[in-house]
């Protein structure tokens, strides 16, 4: 009843191509933004920020980045962990090398550096597709982790081989380091997430997104109607790399503070982000958020309910979590390749007719 486009007519093409064509959607989106910016920072505590909000926001950026590559452009990548590591180490080197520059720019530049690395490893995509490309990006994953482990310059020759984020301020408020207030870290990440999501949405609804999707759906036809496959594929790798790099930098600098590359940015991370994209929905920005939220919240939920509430042993719950995620991946791949986003879309279709389906 409340959710329908009746009485909502687009009278211009601008209105027709906006992100939320239905008024109710648009208002809901504004409300979410207002709550996220104006209310949440005042009520959250350390536990909520570190267990839920920061990982959700940061993984959302990574998932959007990977979704652009896999969901929109159809180029499978298993190198996300490695590319996040590039973002993290680039950010570390910039933070320690140029301490006078604002951390904000460090993170943006880290994204740019990751984009360049990602394009480099995306070059094989011009020749190979599908599984073979996935293997090629897997090489990136292992090579990059090895590189950051072995070459001392990247971790400033520290004895532990770890990188630690020094304290950096934005508008006089620390956002990295031990003194960071929960709300500051949260807001800092939120800004990046919102801007990334908007930029991704704008790119994917315009000509760039159409070129990517054309390459995904039928690359030969795309080339014949004038899409330059080289540019389309590499731009997808670049944009994806930029977002993944941002998320890696935030993950290291704001969320963890200290990183040991093999542990944090290993192959598991690549799979985790890929699962977010698959469960959330390939080719959907909303799906990236949904997938990230799901995989971040699931462990928290299980831990609180099963360990905290019912007193089950922790290792059992952890294994249960593996099983649930594994089963979900299989179910989604078989039954709903477009993921949670598609379920949401179907629910909306139903809601339009509710409560009178006929």
């Amino acid at each position, binding site marked *: 009843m409340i959710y329908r486009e009746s009485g909502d007519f687009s009278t*211009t*093409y*601008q209105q*027709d*191509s906006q992100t939320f064509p239905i008024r109710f959607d648009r208002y809901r989106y504004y409300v979410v933004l207002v709550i996220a910016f104006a209310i949440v920072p005042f009520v959250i505590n350390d536990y909520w920020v570190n267990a839920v909000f920061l990982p959700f926001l940061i993984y959302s950026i990574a998932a959007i980045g990977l979704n652009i590559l896999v969901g929109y452009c159809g180029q499978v990548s298993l190198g996300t962990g490695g590319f996040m590591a590039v973002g993290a180490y680039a950010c570390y080197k910039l933070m320690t090398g140029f301490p006078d520059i604002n951390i904000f720019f460090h993170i943006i530049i880290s994204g740019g550096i990751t984009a360049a690395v990602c394009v480099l490893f995306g070059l094989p995509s011009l020749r190979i597709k599908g599984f073979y490309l996935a293997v090629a990006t897997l090489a990136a994953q292992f090579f990059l982790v090895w590189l950051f482990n072995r070459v001392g310059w990247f971790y400033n020759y520290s004895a532990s081989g770890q990188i630690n984020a020094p304290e950096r301020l934005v508008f006089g408020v620390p956002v990295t380091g031990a003194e960071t207030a929960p709300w500051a870290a949260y807001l800092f990440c939120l800004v990046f997430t919102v801007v990334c999501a908007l*930029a*991704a949405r*704008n*790119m994917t*609804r*315009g*000509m*760039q997104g*159409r*070129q990517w*999707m*054309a390459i*995904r*759906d*039928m690359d*030969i*036809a*795309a*080339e*014949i*109607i*004038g*899409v*330059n*496959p080289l540019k389309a594929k590499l*731009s997808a790798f670049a*944009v994806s790399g930029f977002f993944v790099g941002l998320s890696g930098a935030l993950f290291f600098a704001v969320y963890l503070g200290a990183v040991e590359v093999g542990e944090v940015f290993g192959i598991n991370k690549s799979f985790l982000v890929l699962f977010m994209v698959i469960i959330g929905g390939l*080719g959907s920005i909303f799906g990236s958020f949904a997938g990230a939220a799901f995989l971040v919240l699931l462990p928290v939920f299980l831990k609180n309910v099963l360990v905290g509430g019912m007193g089950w042993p922790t290792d059992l719950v952890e294994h249960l979590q593996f099983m649930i995620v594994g089963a979900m991946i299989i179910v989604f791949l078989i039954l709903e390749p477009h993921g949670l986003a598609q379920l949401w879309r179907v629910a909306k279709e139903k809601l339009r007719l509710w409560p009178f389906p006929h």
Partner: protein
Amino acid sequence: MLDTTEGYTTEDGRKIGGVVMEMKNITLRFGGVVAIKDISFDIREGEIRAIIGPNGAGKSSMLNVISGFYHPQEGEVWYKGEKRPVMKPYQVARQGIARTFQNIALFEGMTVLDNVMTGRIRQMKAGLFAQSIWKGKAEQEETENREFVEKIIDFLEIQHIRKTPVGRLPYGLKKRVELARALAAEPSILLLDEPMAGMNVEEKEDMSRFVLDVNDEFGTTTVLIEHDMGVVMDLSDRVVVMDYGQKIGDGTPDEVRNNQAVIDAYLGVSHD
């Protein structure tokens, strides 16, 4: 024979201009197989040019040569008075040559509107950064091109399926969407590879009407491959006939119809 330099006027009063594309002694080989053997013909501005021939005659290969997908071993393609260098297909497309495919090659996951908008790639130039901001150049460009695309959508009568993903459409409509995508590019030459293949009579009539209307309305030069002789003879201004990779006839439908070599090719004469 027709005059080779000046244009002419058809019986129904359409103006046909000068030569816009000329194929000179094209030979295309795949290993030992000669798909096209020393073929020359020209395409005039505003005409409907048909390429016909039995199966395996090399018609689609010819179209692929024109659209830059195959590169002939010998011969030259002259476009708008200039010799065309070896080009990638997307570069050819950006010169204003659009095509449809024998087996539909639409982007199944995208809506009809997005498919047709993709055809406007030649006209949309906003960079990645401008697009990520959207407001300003990208939005303005999107709106301008959307207006043109809506004209095409109206013209081909596919308004009602604008927002439907292409994968869900029936065959006949898909063919029409593909034509819309090619037209959206405002091509100077439109290549149609069997636009009526697999259609029933009614759909064929619709499609024929669209091909004629497009030619009338936009003056689009059209190159057409088709097996239905009735359609070809009715639609086209001039016809090239191919058989076993060779050109065996070239002229108006009437000339071709009375050409002994063409009759032999279609009725079957032992090649010895």
